[in-house]
């Protein structure tokens, strides 16, 4: 027996390593199940990848920065290499950030990659979320993954905020003061929360150290877990796809993870890293050395947060300074209302999938994406939300826009106040009309074909444009979507003639549903009969 084993040829090294690992980790069955997993191809499915890769870049560069950053608010005198700060008293946090920028090898580049990647990470999450929203990819079974994504975005905002506050420079310090003001505006508990958070009166001596733990440990830890859960769910649910021939709710048409997407995703990671590194190498971000150390008695104009907190800045900037004085207590509505709105604007995103499925009553699984035009109400709601968001970003930068477009800051503030209410309504109406127009065009294309641009003159002198019929697959794409019928309140009398009580919530739901699907809220798809009638030969244009 033993001789037999000896004479058998040894397996190649790679296989032996793999065998060894399989014996302990069971990688073969994992790989078998997942290596050939199919993913569909579309550029918009890569937006989330941009977010994922910039997150990885942020973690990698962040680790490097932790090696040199001192999260301490001890006051020292600066004697580093940046001349305009020589001999200035500052916290160790600020001094070590100056050292990272000027005295640590590659420090400034890494800092700039870290910061640019953070801006791009949040922007990519935002755009990815919009893609998921406008294509209806959040519908069952993906609502929980939508929530995970939403949490990642919100946590990303706060990780960013705690991160750019660490250097303890004048700009970020002003931002922290702003946040503290917002916390103080919370009735009853505000003061306590502020005292708890800052370990006493602002700014105290604990802020940087606490923000540091939150920024490098707590929030990224949670985010890392959420990213993993997010990706596991993407695997579990399978990726959504746009309608097309051969694509159904039960399959995924695309290419396998190995080798195609491994190569593409791996390559894309390096492209993302390259683009961000290029930007970081060429363009300054947050030049802390020019800002000076934070002192509560100093403030500068043009103090804005990074873009993802910009809408909160805008809310506070354009809100009239209302306050109520009652029994010796002040309720600062001018700050508290924006704080509440900040939560409401974000929460609207989180709950939307549940509201939509409640209104439509649609509890089925959806793996085929909607084209935004085919869900006009949802698209219009989304555009209205984005409009409000962008208007508030404008409000947050009102002073910069005032100086650079030679406008009055008061005029901009009033413009923002009015358009914050009017803009989303207009955007809703306009978007819906555009969607319906596009639906009409789709219908026209299906029935009459594509405009070829060829003009033909008929014997009797009439000019006509030749229309080319669409290919079968294009026809399918344009007609694959479902069209919903507006809901009706069921019979109010049952078969025995007993009156059924219609609940108020049901009435509301039916009403909203009619608003969603009813009336002229969608253009009826061309029917087979219509199509046959026109293409049967005796049709005419």
């Amino acid at each position, binding site marked *: 027996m033993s001789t037999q084993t000896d004479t058998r040829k040894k397996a190649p090294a790679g296989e032996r390593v793999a065998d060894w690992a399989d014996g302990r980790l069971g990688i073969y069955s994992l790989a078998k199940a997942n290596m050939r997993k199919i993913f569909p191809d579309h550029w918009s499915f890569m937006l989330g990848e941009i977010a994922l890769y910039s997150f990885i870049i942020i973690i990698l560069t962040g680790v490097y920065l932790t090696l040199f950053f001192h999260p301490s608010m001890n006051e020292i005198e600066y004697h580093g290499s940046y*001349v305009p700060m020589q001999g200035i008293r500052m916290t160790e946090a600020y001094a070590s950030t100056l050292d990272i920028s000027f005295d640590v090898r590659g420090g400034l580049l890494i800092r700039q990659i870290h910061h640019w990647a953070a801006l791009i990470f949040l922007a990519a999450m935002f755009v990815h979320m919009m893609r998921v929203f406008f294509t209806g990819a959040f519908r069952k079974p993906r609502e929980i993954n939508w929530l995970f994504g939403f949490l990642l975005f919100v946590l990303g905002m706060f990780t960013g905020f705690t991160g750019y506050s660490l250097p303890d420079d004048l700009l970020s310090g002003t931002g922290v003061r702003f946040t503290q003001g917002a916390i103080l505006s919370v009735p009853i508990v505000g003061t306590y929360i502020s005292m708890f958070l800052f370990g006493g009166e602002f700014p105290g001596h604990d802020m940087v150290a606490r923000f540091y733990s939150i920024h490098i440990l707590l929030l990224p830890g949670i985010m890392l877990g959420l990213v993993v859960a997010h990706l596991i769910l993407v695997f579990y649910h399978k990726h959504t796809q746009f309608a097309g021939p051969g694509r159904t709710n039960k399959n995924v048409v695309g290419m396998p993870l190995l080798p195609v997407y491994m190569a593409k995703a791996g390559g894309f990671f390096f492209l993302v890293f390259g683009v961000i590194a290029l930007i970081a190498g060429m363009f300054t971000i947050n*030049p802390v050395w020019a800002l000076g150390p934070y002192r509560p008695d100093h403030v500068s104009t043009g103090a804005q947060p990074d873009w993802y907190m910009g809408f909160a800045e805008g809310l506070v900037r354009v809100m009239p300074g209302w306050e109520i004085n009652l029994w010796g207590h002040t309720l600062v509505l001018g700050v508290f209302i924006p704080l509440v709105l900040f939560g409401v604007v974000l929460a609207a995103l989180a709950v939307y999938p549940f509201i939509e499925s409640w209104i439509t009553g649609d509890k089925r699984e959806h793996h085929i994406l909607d084209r935004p035009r085919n869900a006009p109400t949802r698209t219009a709601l989304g555009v209205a939300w984005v409009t409000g968001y962008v208007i508030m970003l404008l409000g947050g930068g009102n*002073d910069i826009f005032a100086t650079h477009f030679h406008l009055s800051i008061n005029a901009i503030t009033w413009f923002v106040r009015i358009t914050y209410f009017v803009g989303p309504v207009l955007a809703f109406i306009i978007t819906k009309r555009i969607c319906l127009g596009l639906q009409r065009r789709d219908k026209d294309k299906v029935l009459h074909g594509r405009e070829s641009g060829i003009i033909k003159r008929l014997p009797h002198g009439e000019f006509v444009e030749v229309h080319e019929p669409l290919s079968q697959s294009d026809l399918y794409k344009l007609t694959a979507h479902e069209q919903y019928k507006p809901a009706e309140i069921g019979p109010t009398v049952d078969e025995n003639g007993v009156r059924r009580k219609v609940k108020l919530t049901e009435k509301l739901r039916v009403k909203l549903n009619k608003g969603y699907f009813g009336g002229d809220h969608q253009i009826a798809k061309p029917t087979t009969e219509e199509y046959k009638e026109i293409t049967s030969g005796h049709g005419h244009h």
Partner: protein
Amino acid sequence: MKKLSARRRHPLAAVVVLLLALAATGGLYAAFAPADKAQADVTAQSLAIKEGQKLYTVGCASCHGTGGQGTSDGPSLVGVGSAAVDFQVGTGRMPAQQPGAQVPEKPVVYSQAEIDQLAAYVASLGAGPITPTEKQYSPEGADIAKGGELFRNNCAQCHNFTGEGGALTEGKYAPSLEGVSPKHLYEAMQTGPQNMPSFPDTTMPEQEKRDIIAYVKTVNSEETPTPGGFALGGLGPVSEGLFGWIFGLGSLIAVAVWVAAHTAKAKKS
């Protein structure tokens, strides 16, 4: 005395007291105010004033009045001093093109000699801050770091961290300090043009002004090094955010489209 006391509640009593008080203050001021120092009437000086008056009559009198007393279109120039004239005319702000929230910087109309003559004339209307000499405003050897601290204490509220400028109410603004000459920086602090408060030597000594000038020259001029690459206007997160979205995410999406367009395709036979 009784008569006076009886009428102390007369409706006109307050007016009478006010008049008396005003008369007393005015009289005391007239009695004790320092008389204007007699200017040393150097011929060159008086010639400059004379020439300045001619320029003034042509270019300035329509708004500031024939004697510099001011009209509804322009403030009085009595006591603004030669430094104010040198700043306003030397940066092209004056003569103003049109009324508005603020008179902007423009190409300079007068030669430096003419500006000096105008300044001499306006200075002759009443004592005020005098055009500084180079020794006063030269940033040579000043403390840049201290200037930075002073700048953040006194200037950054309106002019931004490094003097990029900022918005004030109703279309007014604090202009960018980039490329402003040390002399004009000094004069602006000394005289407080337009919406700017003035920082006379009593509140901000000459040395501190020089420190601030040195700081501004270091952080916001053509020679300012930008170790991080292009500065994107030095405006902070607004321009960074716009750049990040348009060029950062924009180019990444372009790359994504490119990657998605280049995929492994089954060869068509």
